[in-house]
């Protein structure tokens, strides 16, 4: 079959990202309880990361800065 003939039988395809994603999710729906566990685990992981970053605020303010004499900054 020649290249041009080959293309003739091809059909045009519509693109619709939201509909495609929604359909993929419909397949995931049958694992909804497993996905609930996944969701909870992700929340735990994400919040642990958020909390770990806040750890520096009291560490520096209450311990490091309190133990060291702070320099005096003057403008100009």
């Amino acid at each position: 079959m020649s290249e041009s003939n080959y293309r003739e039988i091809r059909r045009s395809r519509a693109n619709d990202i939201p509909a495609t994603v929604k359909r993929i999710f419909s397949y995931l729906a049958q694992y909804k309880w497993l996905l609930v566990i996944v969701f909870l685990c992700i929340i735990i992981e994400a919040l642990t990361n958020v909390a770990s970053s806040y750890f520096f605020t009291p560490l520096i303010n209450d311990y490091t800065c309190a133990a060291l004499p702070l320099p005096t900054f003057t403008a100009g």
Partner: protein
Amino acid sequence: MCGITAAYIYRRIMSIVTTGTLHNMRLDLFSHMQDMPVQFYDTHTHGELMNFYTNDIDAIRPLIGDTLPQMINTIISLVGSMTMMIILSPKLTLITMTLLVLVTSVSVFVGKRSRKYFVKVMRTVSDINGYVEEMLLGQKEVKVFSHEKESVKAFSKFNDETMEASIKSNMFAQSLMPINVNLSYISYAVVAVLGAKACIDGSLELGALASFLLYTRQIAGPVSGLSQQFNGVMMSIAGAERMFEVMDTPTEVDEGKIELVNAINEEGVLIECPQRTGTFAWKDPATGDLTELKGDIRLNDVTFSYVPDKVVLKDVSLYAKPGQKIAFVGSTGAGKTTITNLINRFYDVQEGVITYDGIPVNNIKKSSLRKSLGMVLQDTNLFSGTVMDNIRYGNLEATDEECIAAAKLANADSFINRLPDGYDTMLTANGTNLSQGQRQLLNIARAAVSNPPVLILDEATSSIDTHTERVIEKGMDKLMQGRTVFVIAHRLSTVRNSNAIMVLEHGQIVERGDHDDLLRQKGRYYKLYTGAAELD
């Protein structure tokens, strides 16, 4: 520790979810394709169809397994980090958010540009697969007609298009990560400078600035991570779109209600029964009436065209009484195979009616109709499995003894017994370890074991030498006894003992009668038989 455990658990679960989802998608796609009309397979190459099961479905894996959890993680991290940042310094948060909007806008802009090229990449890869498959199957033809150069030229065109689309899609997608990373560094530097100034002013504590800067990095990380997976996401969506499009293609319509059932004849009265009796009946579920399956097929003023305005059959009328052998003779494209395609409802007639034992075939369930028809085609498809399995394919309920009896009927038993493991010999790759004639004998045995009242032989011996044809004809003669048979053959010697021969030209029956009648008419058949004319 808590975060690490949670991450381990969800990754393990996502692996199960991803594999299961792809498994279900493959199953749905395969099931749907089993119900597709013949036209679908006529307009798609094998390579293209295989592509749906390999590239397209596999492309969805990163979207479910990696991107989806990461996206949820990013959203929760963003919300959590933003909340903490607002608590620590609302002013710096506003600046960070402004820069984040800029990063996101760049991602969306580049994404839109690259997506169309990713879709094109998937299509061109599918084109290549289809073309390669055709060229590999037709390699002998390519060599015989010395079309190697043309073949390479056409392939190069597909290949060039794939390369061009890949370059463009990657050019956009791969520029995304460096842009995002650099924008996040700028954001970090701006926040660091302004935060340091706030510390000097005394409006922000040093500890708060340290945490704030960590949050700035924490936001940039997942956003950059998502942009890194951008290629995969676009490929996933393009693959899913192609696969779902096939799954949305309408399946074969079947409005038929009448079913084929096992029956028993008790003193002239047909009674439905669950076990196989060798007698079948058509059952109308609405009334419960049973009509004995005899094999009486009639075409009344049938007109048909595959595409509008190009009539393939015009006002064709014929009948085949139970046990009669009807032959179709004519040039290629005269409409011989189309008639058989209409009888088994691969296509539906546009005008006129085809009846089977007095029932319009459109009222009969396609599965029941096809169960009552046996077909022996020129091209034999054997499946991976033993010789016995391949014969049993004609009737999955058949016992070993019935399969052997069918093989004996088809004259296949002697050659099967000479095979290394007899009926247990494994056949692979469409039975390439057998000759064309042996494959055809197995095909006849397969038709025999299904024991259909109506048989269609479409050029069954066309690709076989005359010596093998004689062996096969003996098998076919036994198979044809007591059945309604439609024969399509180019060799007139194979149709001369038919009850009626239909000579078709341009979709119309131009002559009909038995062999002797047609010779007396001294028309088209006479010319063909005497060699005064040849079939195209």
